[in-house]
Structure formats: structure tokens, C-alpha cells
């Protein structure tokens, strides 16, 4: 029986934590943590209760912060969090994931590090940086960032990394070698004859279907996609959506056919919710059909977006969905997206949202 639901926020000015009960009606906000550093991703390891926060400070560089007491106290480290002396130094940690007891960190400029001691020290996963396409990777508006690290739940040798704007890469040998996994995703910013390259796509986020590691969902700068084969091929699932642009994609934690998006009005139209009316869009059939969920979300004069890591689900039976805006508002639904309420506001721009459900 779950006893406590934590919503973990990374913001431009530190990490925050919301404490709630399984009813998810009342929340208590704590923070800012991490000395108000820009924090790009905060994750919890429910097996240990440890919270990790990755970010980077313009003065002091990148670090991963750790808290073993649910946010009461924090320490930080970047020991080993550098790639090659001659190259551009690591500016920030962008994404964190736990796999088979190891902590993984995607960084800017795009690279991957692994820690076997809970973030105290780091080893460069050089195989990703050494991919033959590396010299042709170009940054997106947010920089050349490894912003999603998606571990295979059963095979510790497999994981996917999403890089803007290089695309999705997959390893089956623990990171020694990587394959581009972008076939079928568009580059609308390329000339017509180069719309479907092997790499160079501006992937915005990826998510894995519950219990089906080979089924991936993707929000791209240029469309929404589903893969049935671990990213070897992607097919569009944007029909029925108000735009092809957005940042986050969230997979339902129990139902592999349910997926959530937060479409925006377009990459050159302000990147706001369409028509100033906010909606989370949900598919119950793997992206074939979409329903807009608006109850409790502003339906006029809304000019915000939700960034690539800023929407998440909790793992309760009746799943909660959380969407943090780049204007510092956190919307939450305790009923799979049917109804929404503001559970925090007046925060710094929200970079990331994750959850951790703790047992009694």
C-alpha cells in the first residue's frame, strides 16, 4: 500500500519536492534545493528512496546532487564528469536514469556517464561520443544535449539515449557500441531530399510502453511517432492532434496502449498551447486516436508550454499525471487526465517533473 507520493521538480532555480498522500488532493511544497542551481532533471530511486538531481551552474559547472533523506539534506559530486581534456567541458547534466543499480547521466555537450556508487563518481561511456556520426551532430535551441536516457527494464546491456538534434541511439552491449534509431522520423528543417536521414533528427522526448520495451513513443520537433521494434523503425501517430510540435511524451505506467502528449502551436509560432487553450492529449489505443483533456486547465489567454521533461505519471493504480509549465505552474490530475488542478504555482520555469511513490 503506497503511503507517500512525491513529485520531483527540476527548475531554473533549484529542485523542489511536493509531498502528497495517495489521495493526491493536498500537497506540501518544499524547496528550493541544490543551492538554486539550474536543475534539469530530478529522479527518485524507489528501491532506495534516494533522490538525484542533475544540473549545471554557470560558475561552478555540472553536478549530480543526492539526497538520501527525501530532500532534507543534499550533497553533490561531479568526480569524473568530464570527457576528454581537449573537448568542450561538460556544461550541465540533463537527464538521469537508474538501471540495474547504476546511475546514468546524459549531459551537455551530448554524452553519457555511468556511476556505480550512487553518483559519487562517474565513468564516461565513451562509445556514444565515439559514434561515427558524432562530428555531424548539431545542437538544437537548447544546446547539444543528451536529454533522455531510457533503460531497458530487464536487460542491463540495453538502453536508448535521445539527443537534440542528433536523434535516438540504442546500445545492446552496455554502451560500447551504438546504432542510430531514427528511421521514419522527419527532419522538416532539411531540404526535401534529406527529410529522412539516418541521424540528425530533433527528437524532443521518448518514452517506453508499459511492459513492452520494444514499443517506444516519441515526440519530435517534427511529429509524434510510435515504434514497435525498439526504434528500428518509427511510424507517425500525429493524425488527430492539433499540431505536430510539442516537447514531452509520457507513457502510462500500466497500460502500454495509453500515451500522453502536450502539443504546442508550432516551433515558429511562440511554442504556446494552441489558441491559448491548454490541453493534455491522451490516446488509449497506441496513438491511433486522440482525446483532448481540458477540465481544469486554462481555456483562454494561456501562453505557456511544457518542456521536454516536464510531464510525468505516477505509478498508482489510478494513475496521476503531472504537467509543469515553463511559467512555473504545476498542473496535476489524480484520475488519468480527466480532471486537473493547480498544485503549485509561482515557481521558476519548470524543466522537469518526475514522481516517486513510496510504500508504507
Amino acid at each position, binding site marked *: 500500500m503506497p503511503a507517500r507520493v512525491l513529485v520531483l521538480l527540476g527548475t531554473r532555480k533549484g529542485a523542489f519536492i511536493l509531498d502528497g498522500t495517495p489521495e493526491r488532493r493536498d500537497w506540501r511544497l518544499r524547496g528550493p534545493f541544490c*543551492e538554486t542551481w539550474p536543475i534539469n532533471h530530478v529522479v527518485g530511486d524507489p528501491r532506495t528512496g534516494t533522490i538525484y538531481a542533475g544540473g549545471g551552474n*554557470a*560558475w*561552478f*559547472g555540472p553536478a549530480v546532487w543526492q539526497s538520501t533523506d527525501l530532500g532534507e539534506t543534499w550533497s553533490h559530486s*561531479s*568526480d569524473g564528469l*568530464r570527457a576528454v581534456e581537449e573537448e568542450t567541458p561538460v556544461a550541465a547534466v540533463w537527464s538521469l536514469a537508474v538501471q540495474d543499480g547504476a546511475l546514468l547521466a546524459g549531459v551537455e555537450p551530448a554524452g553519457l556517464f555511468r556511476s556505480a556508487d550512487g553518483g559519487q563518481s562517474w565513468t564516461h561511456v565513451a562509445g556514444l561520443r565515439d559514434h561515427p556520426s558524432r562530428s555531424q551532430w548539431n545542437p538544437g535551441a537548447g544546446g547539444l544535449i543528451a536529454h533522455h536516457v531510457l533503460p531497458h527494464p530487464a536487460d542491463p546491456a540495453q538502453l536508448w539515449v535521445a539527443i537534440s538534434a542528433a536523434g535516438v541511439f540504442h546500445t545492446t552491449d552496455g554502451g560500447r557500441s551504438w546504432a542510430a534509431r531514427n528511421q521514419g522520423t522527419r527532419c522538416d528543417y532539411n531540404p526535401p531530399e534529406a527529410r529522412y536521414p539516418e541521424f540528425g533528427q530533433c527528437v524532443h522526448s521518448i518514452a517506453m510502453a508499459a511492459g513492452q520495451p520494444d514499443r517506444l513513443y516519441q515526440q519530435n520537433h517534427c511529429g509524434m511517432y510510435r515504434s514497435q521494434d525498439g526504434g528500428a523503425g518509427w511510424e507517425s501517430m500525429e493524425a488527430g492532434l492539433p499540431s505536430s510540435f510539442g516537447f514531452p511524451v509520457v507513457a502510462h505506467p500500466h497500460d502500454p496502449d495509453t500515451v500522453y502528449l502536450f502539443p504546442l502551436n508550432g516551433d515558429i509560432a511562440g511554442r504556446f498551447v494552441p489558441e491559448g487553450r491548454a490541453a493534455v492529449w491522451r490516446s488509449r489505443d497506441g496513438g491511433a486516436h486522440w482525446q483532448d483533456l481540458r477540465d481544469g486547465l486554462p481555456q483562454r489567454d494561456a501562453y505557456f508550454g511544457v518542456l521536454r521533461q516536464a510531464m510525468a505519471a505516477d505509478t498508482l493504480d489510478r494513475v496521476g499525471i503531472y504537467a509543469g509549465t515553463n511559467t512555473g505552474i504545476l498542473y496535476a490530475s489524480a484520475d488519468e487526465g480527466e480532471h486537473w488542478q493547480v498544485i503549485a504555482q509561482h515557481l521558476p520555469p519548470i524543466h522537469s517533473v518526475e514522481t516517486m511513490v513510496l510504500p508504507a
Partner: protein
Amino acid sequence: MILVTLPPALLPLFPGCPGRHSVSATTVAEAIAALDAAWPGLGDRLCESPGRLRRHIRAFVAGEPADLATALPDGADLFLMTAISGG
């Protein structure tokens, strides 16, 4: 011995770390290495690589801009500061 003054924004990252330190060093790099030995990780916060200060960290010796190779005469005052360009 030389006297090192650390930027105030650095101190909360190392609880208990004072803002001023006396260390034995003949260069700025040696001074930071001495501080890192006493406060593990502190060098990472100031240097982006073993040979380079972070982009928005400034060093001054006797009021003059310095880098990691700058010599420190005995009794020198080394100021390590956060640049306005970083925040």
C-alpha cells in the same frame, strides 16, 4: 604561505568551508589543489579541466587578473571570484 579568498556562492556547496584559507602554494593551480585536498570536489567547481579555470571564475593576485599558472609569491593574496558574466 598565501591567503586564498573563495567566492561566497561556493561556500554552501561545502558545508563548514571557510571563506578564507592559508595554504602553501607557489601557483594558483597549486593553491586550488591544496584546497581540493582539504575539501574534495572543490577543485572541480573552480576548474573545468586540470589546466583551465571555469569560464566564469576569475582569479586575481595582487589585484591583477591571474590564471592557473600565475606565480604566487610568499604572502600573496589570491582572490577567486564569480564573474558577473556567470550570473
